[in-house]
């Protein structure tokens, strides 16, 4: 056994070194903090420190479950995530398929570059642009007015908030997320297409029977990962876009955690809310994995 390990080490030394930073990253930023999540069960006071702050059991969780905002936060987080998944997930696949069918190399590269550029723009700038587009004298209202509609401020209408969020989200991420599908598309054996053509399949049939089955494993893995992230929307974009008038649809768990933790300094409470969110995410991921294993051969573990 011992010999085996040292042999393995000798052979793969450089590989282990290569993976070390990644392992460290997870240890430092994902595993070590889990210990600190214990303050969710305490009444944490920085002066008393971690070990001396009194235990309060599940009080922080009960408080969140009984909060008047509980159901609203769950609903908003869930709906916003679902909409992002529902519209955003297929969008990047469709874009990848379309780019894949472009014959002109230069055009292909240009489209690709333009579509993933927004991913590299700072979120603060993106949200500033959204805000400027959405004011009653902004670009979007100019278009609406041009077609005879009436101008109205969009960012303060709870009914418009999710649309604005989802559409801008897609705009920002579509190019970036299509990269992985493009890579998968390259791996499909061109002989399969030839065979399909000989059998008389047109473009559409080729797409259905060769291309899609070819990238299906990638799609499923990506879908699983997305479902695992379903309820974990970041707070950054929300706090840049919302205002009290749109709390009704805009306030999500992470923005609530942000407000109670960093603005109102209720550390324990906000940790409890965050922990609760993580537990839900874990549950969703396991569920998705289970379903996928049951109905297809692909799964994460």
């Amino acid at each position, binding site marked *: 056994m011992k010999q085996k390990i040292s042999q393995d080490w000798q052979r793969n030394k450089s590989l282990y070194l290569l993976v070390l930073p990644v392992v460290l990253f997870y240890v430092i*930023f*994902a595993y*070590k*903090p*889990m*210990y*600190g*999540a214990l*303050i969710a069960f305490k009444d*944490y*006071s*920085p*002066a*008393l*420190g*971690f*070990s001396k702050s009194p235990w309060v059991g599940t009080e922080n969780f009960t408080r969140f479950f009984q909060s*008047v*905002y509980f159901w609203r936060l769950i609903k908003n987080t869930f709906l916003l995530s679902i909409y992002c998944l529902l519209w955003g997930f297929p969008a990047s696949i469709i874009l990848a398929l379309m780019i894949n069918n472009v014959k002109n190399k230069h055009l292909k590269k240009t489209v690709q570059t333009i579509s993933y550029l927004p991913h590299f723009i700072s979120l603060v700038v993106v949200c500033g642009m959204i*805000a400027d587009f*959405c*004011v*009653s*004298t902004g670009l979007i209202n100019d278009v609406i007015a041009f077609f005879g509609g009436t*101008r*109205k*401020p969009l*960012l*303060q209408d*709870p009914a418009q908030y999710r649309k604005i969020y989802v559409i801008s989200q897609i705009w920002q991420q579509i190019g970036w997320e299509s990269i992985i599908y493009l890579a998968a598309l390259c791996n499909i054996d061109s002989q399969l297409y030839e065979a399909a053509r000989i059998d008389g399949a047109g473009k559409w049939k080729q797409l259905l029977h060769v291309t899609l089955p070819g990238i299906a494993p990638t799609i499923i893995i990506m879908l699983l990962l997305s479902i*695992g*992230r379903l309820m*974990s929307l*970041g*707070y*950054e974009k929300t706090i840049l876009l919302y*205002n*009290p*008038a749109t*709390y*009704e649809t805009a306030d999500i768990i*992470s923005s609530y*955690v*942000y*407000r*109670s*933790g*960093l*603005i*109102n*300094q*209720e*550390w324990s409470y*906000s*940790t409890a809310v*965050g*922990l609760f*969110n*993580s537990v839900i995410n*874990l549950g969703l991921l396991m569920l998705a994995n289970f379903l996928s294993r049951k109905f297809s051969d692909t799964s994460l573990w």
Partner: protein
Amino acid sequence: MRKTTLLVLMVLCVTSALFANGTKETEVQQPVSTSSTFTGYPMEKDTPVSFWIKPGSSVTANFSSMGDTPFYKEALKRTGIDIDFQHPPIGQENEQFSLIMADGNYPDIMMYNWLSNYPGGPAKAIADGVIMSLNDIFDKYCPNIKAYLAAHPDYDKAIKTDDGQYYCVPMINTEGTGTFLGPMIRSDILAHLGKEVPTTIDEWYDVLKAAQASGISHPLASEFSQIDIRNWNPFMYAYKTDSSFFVADDNTIHYGPIEEGYKEYLENFAKWYREGLVDPDLPSLTTDQVTEKMTSGKSIAAWALVGGRMGSWIPAGQKTNPDYMLIATPWPTLGKGETPEYGWSAMPFSGNGAAITTKCKNVERAARLLDYFWSNEGHDFAYFGTKDVTYTIDADGNYHYTDLITKNTKGWTLGQMIAAYTIANYTTPTYADIRYSKEYASLPSQKEAYDIWRTNCLKHLLPPITPSPDDSKTLARIMNEITTYQRELSLKFILGTEDIDKSWDTYVANIKKMGIDQALAIENKAYDSYQNR
């Protein structure tokens, strides 16, 4: 799996503090050393004092640290005390403060609103071992502060906890310096419309309507997304109410947003919004957008700061329109000729002050540094800089900035020049100086504004009361939820997305259900002990 970044960040701070600093929990508060070797300024060279303070925007425009300003270079010569400034990123003071608190490595001095922003209040901050009680320190090292407080018993009462502990070296807004924000309107447009300066709600309505008829589509604009601006709406104060707790005529604390006056305000303001008198983008307006509207003539009235806003709008507006002029208007009332009872003014003490933390290595140096700016010499220096360089004294004994400040060649604004050579332009731990306020307000409209905006509101604004730590906690818990709800609904009522007549009763009932009565009981208990101080 990606957890929320926030959770990771906070929790990381907590754990790293724990691992890196295993002994910190057993540390005891340093006893104040009794043997002082102080023989006057400048003091001998020693380790720098670390000073955490939010820099004014007039400083950050030109300097990355307050320590780089000519003022602090001169201050180092005068006091001999090196300062290591630590600045939070603008707009993230509270987050930064939270992180420092969670981490436990406090700088020597921290300038912050200990009264309203430390969870549990200042008494808790002392009990938690975050900051020191300053009573002994004032006695030993701060003769100037002691003398000032002895001469001003009102301020002295305001800056203590109920059990008589000083917790910070305060920023005091002295008589007449607190009225630096209020309603303002374009006087040239008023003249053009043939209207008088509006003083009542009805007159305002009349003026705004006339302006609208003359082609200014949305005459009233303000950056409503900023909490201060939202909470200090002049058209609310006219209804003798407030957006939060206030002292009513019966000398007890009331919660404004559930009272009849607040409802009338909402009804009126919603009507103005509906009729387009108020900018349609009200909730999302940014300061830059308001500046653009006010200087280009798309809007003609706002409520804003006398210095940074009125003082920069007038010259900017005059560039394209030589007639452009803004004037302050009195805080509006309902009846003609009434003295405004309600309005906004900075409280003499709003809770902002420099506290000395328990991690301070050299308490005497920190205390002497803060005390220096309360001496006559130090105070003149703080507000006017160096004599004959940045200011001169005229024959009547009045102080004036020199051309170095007022006619600078660098293209900086007056505020930025003042902020470079003095500390007068932002929240500083000393008492404010009306001589500076009038000098800084260089335009006649600005000078007048301080007096026009005077009201009797100090009677009604909440004094710096300090509920007990447990009470504060309950209060924070209740109010965090209520405030979210109140802000949301107030905006909806104004925007018309929620019908006031239909939903008002449910709204009040909901706030009651969230525990406003308990919160009021806590506030009133604390108010009673404040009055008995």
